[in-house]
């Protein structure tokens, strides 16, 4: 006899926050700030986004020196090869409203480690990497990374040797960045799919490096910023 179907667990109550989100959206639509149709189209598009295309871009670059060259020279063009058209595939057909159309791929070397931040707000290459994690948005990460990158990376579990330069790239009004890490040892002969699995979101931001067998991001602590904003 077939086993009884067990429904997946679900949250069976309506929270005040869920109500607030709908209320804010409905009022904004009623006030003419945007239309329900535009919001719906944008939401559907956002649901399609995630870090897999960026992971695949890195894996391809590891396997194909010509593609790596293209990725470093023209990230937007290289993105096409992993199914991301920064300009034409957005519902806008002219790029996204706050992600713009300039992706730069930062190539790590054994003597150079890149890491990405947005000191001003939380700019992030969403079309190719999905939604930003909470810690990336915090003033604590944004302020401290640019001042003490090695210490902050160490808190993420990444000890960068003194003879390796750390370069922090600050996202800005026109540019978005992902990191192309060094291909780790122990991955010789791996397929593109195998390689893409170990290129996690955190590797693409630059706070982690790929390791064979590691396919998920670690939980990251979120710390408050305690100093006044001017400091």
């Amino acid at each position: 006899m077939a086993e009884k179907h067990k429904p997946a667990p679900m949250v069976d109550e309506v929270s005040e926050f869920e109500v607030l989100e709908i209320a804010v959206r409905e009022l904004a639509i009623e006030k003419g700030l945007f239309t329900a149709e535009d919001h719906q189209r944008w939401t559907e598009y956002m649901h399609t986004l995630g870090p897999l295309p960026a992971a695949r871009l890195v894996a391809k670059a590891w396997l194909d020196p010509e593609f790596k060259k293209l990725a470093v020279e023209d990230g937007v063009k290289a993105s096409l090869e992993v199914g991301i058209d920064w300009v034409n595939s957005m519902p806008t057909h002219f790029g996204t409203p706050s992600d713009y159309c300039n992706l730069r791929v930062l190539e790590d070397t054994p003597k150079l480690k890149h890491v990405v931040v947005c000191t001003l707000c939380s700019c992030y290459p969403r079309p190719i990497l999905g939604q930003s994690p909470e810690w990336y948005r915090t003033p604590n990460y944004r302020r401290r990374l640019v001042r003490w990158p090695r210490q902050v990376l160490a808190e993420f579990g990444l000890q960068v040797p003194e003879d390796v330069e750390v370069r922090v790239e600050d996202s800005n009004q026109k540019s978005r960045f992902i990191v192309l890490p060094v291909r780790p040892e122990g991955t010789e002969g791996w397929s593109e799919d195998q390689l893409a699995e170990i290129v996690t979101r955190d590797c693409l931001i630059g706070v982690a490096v790929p390791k064979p067998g590691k396919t998920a991001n670690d939980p990251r602590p979120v710390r408050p910023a305690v100093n006044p904003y001017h400091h």
Partner: protein
Amino acid sequence: MAEINPKYFELDKEMRDRDLDESTPVSLLEDVKGKGRVWDDLCEQYGVDNPDPPWRITLEATCDMLAGGYWETFNVCKPKEERDSEEEQKHLDAVERRWEEDQLVNKYYDEVPFPERQLLALAHTLIRRGLFDEEELARRMEEIDRRLNSA
């Protein structure tokens, strides 16, 4: 390579140098903050492991739409008083919203987890800027609560 708008650097400095002007707690949002059950707690109670509440993406979409959505190719980052057209006045630039979110979270919603804090800050910002008022929002929340709990 696109050139960086020099206004970006001016804005960067302005953002670092200024403070949130007079702001007051919004009692409705304080109420939500106090009574509302956050996603982490709901997940634990119901055994759900989705890291984000189902409304996170719709909230992000609302923020993008407020920034100009489809019709604004680039974020112009102009302060509200410098915007010319009525259409421009309706926009809430991403960088403005995020700056204000940081300030409001620091002041009122520090103990609320993400993305609930982002939502509270956005509602607070829209009320502060007069895009709707607290009473309207309270009425709408009551209606939605009745609607969602009518099954």
